[in-house]
């Protein structure tokens, strides 16, 4: 039989993600320019809170429960992050929005409204405003080297999957 404490453990990561989503909302109301930073801050605030709760109650909870609390929070927040990120940059969603706004639109008309040219300009703008690249005399350079790690990670996975 599940006790109240067990139920608390089960739901704590999801409640934490809900609270961090509210924190993200508060940060967004103050400054919506750098959404990624807002997401990261809201993630870490609750992450450290979970670590603190785990430390304080470590005598009452098992290793499995500690692992569950941390892992589930990270996974659930990753899913929330994907939900937010898809609103911003998902090509598939943008195309769906175009068709939703202009029902009965043809492929030619879609390509007139949204094409590789637009995508390039948008991405450059977002990469620049997100502090990932910077412009110097009409040339672009990498500002945040962490993105290279992500790029290599994706490339390795693409090689493994033979894409």
């Amino acid at each position: 039989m599940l006790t109240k404490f067990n139920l608390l453990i089960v739901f704590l990561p999801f409640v934490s993600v809900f609270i961090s989503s509210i924190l993200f909302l508060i940060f967004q109301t103050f400054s919506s320019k750098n959404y990624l930073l807002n997401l990261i801050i809201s993630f870490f605030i609750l992450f450290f809170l979970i670590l603190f709760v785990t430390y304080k109650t470590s005598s009452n909870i098992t290793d499995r429960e500690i692992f569950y609390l941390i892992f589930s929070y990270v996974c659930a927040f990753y899913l929330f992050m994907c939900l937010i990120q898809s609103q911003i940059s998902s090509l598939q969603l943008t195309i769906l929005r175009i068709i939703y706004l202009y029902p009965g639109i043809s492929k030619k008309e879609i390509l007139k409204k949204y094409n590789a040219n637009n995508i390039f300009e948008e991405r450059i703008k977002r990469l620049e405003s997100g502090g990932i690249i910077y412009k110097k005399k009409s040339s672009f350079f990498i500002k945040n080297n962490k993105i290279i790690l992500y790029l290599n990670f994706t490339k390795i996975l693409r090689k493994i999957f033979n894409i």
Partner: protein
Amino acid sequence: MQVILNYLAFFLIFFLLQIFLFRFLRININKPSIILLFVIISLIVGFYSFSIELLLNLIIINLTIICFYTLVPGIINYGPGLEIIDLIVNKKINKKDTLKKKFLKGKLSKSVEKRLEINISSNLIKLDKGKFSIKRNTRNMLIIFNIIKKIYRIKSDAY
């Protein structure tokens, strides 16, 4: 430590299964129907087991499967942002004009067409006599997404 090792074993088996199926048979198991099946089985098992340990394991397994579902499409369909970074980092192209030229000549120049095909094959839109329209479920999904976008004050790249 044992808990982490157990999870790592599951993760490795699941990851290797994904690689094997995709690399050799071109089968992508990250589909909503498969996830739903896992969730239903887990709910039944979790409901009748009355074991907290099993319940926690089932939640972890399901979360891993759902995370893979969101991660794999991003790997299969290489994003334009990463393509630009790849051109800057690995091809050492820095000038905006050259960067744009290379980008427009590359695979991603057809990304809109590719996403249209994905949307059709995923049953999100329908094509009738060269005209696109969205399906009822997609419309509901877009309404929810628009609400999320408004609540969180998210500015999308386009539309």
